């Protein structure tokens, strides 16, 4: 197992290098002139040229790429064009707010969606199953924006059950978490229900029933275990997206996370920030894939890591 992990970790290096190269080419070759953006609209060409030289932006591309690799290794992505703030600080500042919103939504959604999916599978082809499916589809069909606006207006403003906006204590997170949970539940239920039902029609399930196991025993002891592979894939590959934050919820509820940071950077064409967020997100995705493979071996003894 250890040798597998080390080997896979080493495989990650060329992938990360490739990600670095692509992000570099995207943003350094196509990107906007940093010096011009920093100096504002009244800057003269001479001022822009002087600052480019100072920032190392006038050198050849290989030299700039080496500088970028150094930034990656030291987790020092330089400064934002738009705000002059250190990008590593901006990312670190944004991670905690993003996670404080995204993790509870993710965990509650996961647990509730699996429980409801098992319930639907248990009562498959009955009115309970149909009601769950209809409810899930309805939930998915309503835009998150509707939940946000209705939640802010009715629950927060009119009924004063929650704060309207802000990030100052746990109570400020309750409404966005509830909205995030409700808006994401439908798709989760549908996915996990499909996964569980797929397993329900496998031969080993029929065998288990033939041996006299109860429905409950089959569902929890056999089906759930075997459904873990797709569930794990979905769960672990979702983890990197927790870091990138929830754009709409952060924006409307004033949660200063990475979703908000990314949107601001896109609107202000702040390429170094976008580049850093994209790179860190890509690397997290690569490592999440690695983690998924390792988890497979832990939950499914048929899978051997070589």
């Amino acid at each position, binding site marked *: 197992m250890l040798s597998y992990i080390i080997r896979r970790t080493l495989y990650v290096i060329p992938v990360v290098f490739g990600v670095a190269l692509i992000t570099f080419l995207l943003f350094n070759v196509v990107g*906007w*002139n940093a010096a*011009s*953006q*920093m*100096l*504002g*609209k*009244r*800057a*003269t*060409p*001479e*001022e822009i*040229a*002087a*600052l480019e030289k*100072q920032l190392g932006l006038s050198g050849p591309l290989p030299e700039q790429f080496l500088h970028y690799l150094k930034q990656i290794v030291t987790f020092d992505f330089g*400064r934002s064009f*738009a*705000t*002059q*703030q250190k990008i590593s600080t*901006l990312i670190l*500042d*944004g991670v*905690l707010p993003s996670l*404080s919103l995204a*993790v*509870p939504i993710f*965990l509650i959604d996961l*647990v509730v969606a699996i429980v409801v999916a098992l319930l639907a599978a248990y009562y498959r082809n009955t009115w309970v199953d149909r009601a769950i499916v209809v409810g899930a589809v309805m939930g998915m069909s309503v835009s998150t924006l509707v939940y946000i*606006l209705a939640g*802010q*207006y009715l629950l*927060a*403003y009119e009924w004063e059950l929650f704060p*309207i*906006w*802000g*990030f*100052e*204590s*746990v*109570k*400020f*997170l309750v409404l966005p978490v509830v909205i995030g949970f409700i808006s994401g539940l439908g798709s989760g239920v549908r996915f996990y229900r499909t996964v569980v039902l797929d397993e329900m029609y496998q031969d080993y399930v029929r065998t288990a029933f033939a041996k006299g196991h109860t429905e409950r025993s089959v569902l929890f002891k056999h089906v759930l275990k075997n459904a873990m592979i797709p569930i794990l894939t979905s769960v672990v590959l979702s983890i990197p997206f927790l870091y990138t934050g929830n754009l709409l919820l952060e*924006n*409307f*509820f*004033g949660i*200063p996370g990475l979703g*908000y*940071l990314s949107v*601001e950077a896109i*609107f*202000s*064409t702040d390429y170094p920030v976008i580049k850093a967020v994209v790179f860190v997100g890509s690397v997290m995705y690569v490592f999440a894939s690695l983690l998924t493979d390792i988890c497979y071996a832990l939950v499914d003894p048929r899978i051997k890591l070589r």
Partner: protein
Amino acid sequence: MSLRRALVVWLALGATIARGADSASATQTYFGSTERIRGFDPITAGDVPTAAAIYKLYEGLLEYEYLVRPYKVRPLLAAEMPQVSADGLTYTFKIKPGVRFHDNPCFPDGQGRELTAADFVYSWKRLADVRNKSTGYWVFEGRIVGLDEFHKKSMEQAVSYDEPVAGVQALDRYTFQVRLTEPYPQLLWILTMDYTFAVPREAVERYGEEFLNNPVGTGPFLVKKWKRSYRIEFARNPRYHGDTYPSEGEPGDREAGLLDDAGQPLPLLDSIVQYVISDDSTEWLMFLSGRLAASGIARSNFDAVITGQKELTSALKARGIRLEKSPLMDTTYLGFNMEDPVVGPNQKLRQALCCAIDVEKYCRFYNDRLMPAKGPIPPKVAGYDPDKPFPYPFDLERAKQLLTEAGYPDGKDPKTGRRLQLTLETGSAADPEARQANELIASFFAALGVELKISPNNWPEFLKKMERRQVQLYQLIWRIDYPDAENFLMLFYSKNASPGPNHANYSNPEFDRLYEQIRTMQDSPERTAIYRRMADIVVEDAPWIFMTHPLAYGLYQPWLKNFKSHDFPYPNVKFYKVDPTQMRN
């Protein structure tokens, strides 16, 4: 991690966040801003939210009178108005003694030291050093003896701030002298701008690039807490230098209670929180719930808030909410690139397009929060003439006639038989409201038989196209820097052509001659007459389609006192106060 443990961690995290926002005192006042700030360095402040933060912390030699109109300046860190030499080239300022910088570890004993004339010498050289990425050197460019040389040298090598510059000198501890290369009539306005504010050298040298996160000024407030992209909490500077509430205002100010606090030491608020609320609807709910002291009105919300008579709805009036309306000193326009082979040489075509714009309809799209422009100079600025008729008002028949005279009968090019197609570059790709407004403009051109293609860009890309003169038509708003028509007329001076601010690349020898004449003229009826003449020239030449001047609509809570609309409002929060009893109700 068990679910229970995860919940405990989440609650602990929440508690940590809560500690960051403790102690909401009775006089803590909240304001919203739609954008985050760029940091607290005065020389890089170029946007509204950053300026709003900077002016609370830093100060310059002069500031605008708060209540008096027309605008005039008064001493702030200067002890008195400057002595000006007879030739208008030397300004000598006495610095107010006893003014201290905020306490900060950058000073030997952590106690803010006294401000001196040398701080202005240092701060202005710092503004001129291109390595500091200042967005504001233009305020002194070509104006101060020796400063341009210092600026140019900084482009090639690191410069020493100990190197003397003849035009900025500390004659003694409290005497600061500025020597100009030519008379600079706008200098006193310029000295109210944040680019010229005093910063202590100790702080800049201690914090280096992090100076923008460690403000050390002389201003009425200190930064107590700052969470980037979320909130800044300012606390009253307990050692503020004794500036007091003004005792002079306009007629009506006393009756409105605006002089009740005359002579009171500033600031009047204990604590201010500046939030970053990026969504209009959220800001509106925060305001309605009484959390925010002030709010704008989103276009989508306008009809629910303002009646057909442009007054506040009775429901909001009953809550005591105040509406303040005021024309802004800004001009929105569509510029023609005069180097473009189609629109540049064809004055009749440009005039035809001017006549095709139904400005009244355009204003209605924006809930009539705009007023039609008659030229480049906005209201309230010397040179603006409200009674003068605009020579190219909306008139479709006349537009068609002019278009025919321009060589495009029915909007078609007789040589090719094809419809005339023009391209409008905009820098508002992300703004759906601006996109709708541009479609409206395209429909005005379509009525004339001209096809207008809208080319949305992100802002930097838009600037790049203008700087490279790659536009045909472009859309911009010019926000005034100081209340002098020169600030608008310089946009037509041929030596300011792109990449300078004259993005129309307009050139008219007569206009240039007049501009060079007024450049060094002090305010006078003669100068105002020349401003009007210059405005007439550009209206006739039509390098721009003059669109509108915006009207500001602001809403204010009944408990916010001493508020008066101002075109340069950034430092004015120090004059505001709240009625805590009314606030709690």
